[in-house]
């Protein structure tokens, strides 16, 4: 078994791994996309809101950061349907969970990014007569996004790895595919070696791609 490595069964079922990998990437992209919207909105609300708003947002962030992702996944998938009327799939459930998860981390990233916008730029915006809203849209947010780019990249890679938790509710991503092959072929070493390789290569490819983006747009790296 483990001693004579035999990869043929792995290659035969490789489609499960490949489609799982694609799904993992899609889940991560969806999560960071929605997470960005949540994070951005809450970050803007945070810096411009009153004490109550800030406390609520802080509570949201603290809860998500201190509770294991797997528990959140169970909560949304098993717990929430008991109080809502409509049904949703496991994949949808996971996307919602991971997006909320991403949103909490991104609120911090964006808030720090907004704080890091140099005073001078904002002053320049005031000097040419922009309203606070215009300053937000044309000066602070664009600058903040460039400052936050490295942190965004790291978050995305993390989210990609976090998609593995979706396997516990039978979402057919990469880790689920690995377990499937594991249980059906008993080729434990082989499948996990391949899956490790896939995560590493995919993660590395993502990093290189994002670094290229950073070089073009980021400030301060």
């Amino acid at each position, binding site marked *: *078994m*483990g*001693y004579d490595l035999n990869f043929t069964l792995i290659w035969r079922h490789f489609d499960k791994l490949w489609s799982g990998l694609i799904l993992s990437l899609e889940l991560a992209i969806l999560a960071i996309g929605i997470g960005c919207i949540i994070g951005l909105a809450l970050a803007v609300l945070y810096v411009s809101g009153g004490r109550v708003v800030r406390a609520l947002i802080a509570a949201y962030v*603290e*809860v998500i*950061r*201190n*509770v*294991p*992702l*797997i*528990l*959140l996944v*169970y*909560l949304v998938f*098993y*717990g*929430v349907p*008991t*109080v809502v009327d409509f049904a949703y799939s496991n994949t949808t459930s996971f996307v919602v969970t991971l997006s909320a998860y991403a949103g909490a981390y991104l609120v911090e990233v964006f808030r720090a990014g907004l704080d890091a916008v140099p005073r001078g730029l904002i002053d320049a915006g005031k000097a040419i007569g922009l309203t606070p809203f215009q300053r937000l849209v044309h000066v602070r947010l664009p600058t903040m996004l460039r400052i936050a780019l490295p942190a965004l990249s790291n978050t995305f890679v993390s989210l990609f*790895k*976090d*998609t*593995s*938790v979706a*396997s*516990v509710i039978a979402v057919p991503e990469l*880790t689920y595919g*690995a*377990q499937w092959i*594991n249980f059906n072929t008993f080729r*434990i*070493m082989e499948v*996990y070696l391949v*899956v*490790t390789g896939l*995560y*590493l290569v995919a*993660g*590395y490819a993502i990093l290189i791609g994002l670094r290229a983006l950073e070089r073009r747009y980021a400030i301060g790296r």
Partner: protein
Amino acid sequence: MLDQIAYAIPFLLPGLLVTIEVSLITVAVSSVIGVVLGVGLVYGPAWLRWPIRGFSDIIRGIPILVLLFFVYYGLPLTGLNLQSFAAAVLGLTIFKVAQVIEYVRGAIESVPRGQMDAAKAIGLPFHERLAYVIAPQAVRRFLPPWLNGVTDAVKGSALISLLGVGDLLFGIQKVVGRTYDPLALYCFGALLYFVMNYALSIASRALERRFSYIRE
């Protein structure tokens, strides 16, 4: 809802203890090994640095879950037959070791290069250079991520329920299976994890403040 939770508590307590136990062991063992390997990564000869670097990069590049499954299912094949508990702790520890190595590397590299020169110049041997000059300065950069990592260990420990280890999450799921009230119980479980980790993060922030007496 509340009576469900009240019913559940005696069943959850053992699981909570297991979670705490696993987290403590993981953090303690990984910190010791991680610091040693981290120092080896920064100061060691090439034949030591490359394997440690490789180990750290690979382990941190895969999801914890994959590592746990790999260890749990793969270990028996190497002849080592561990109980689920031991296998789970081993997997979590390996993961944390890789992270601690990174914390150590970042912390030591944040100490200005001239410090090592000055320590050499007054004639201190290597281990005293580390102990009296480098470590006191590196500790300041090491603590914040390390303390964060402790909450990561607690959160990561929840995954061992998938390996059949009777931790808090495992206990919650058993009770859910019996009472069919997932929402209340998962919320309660979330509360327990939250209290644990939030307390840890408060303690860590206080500790950080104590160590930031060196002004740049």
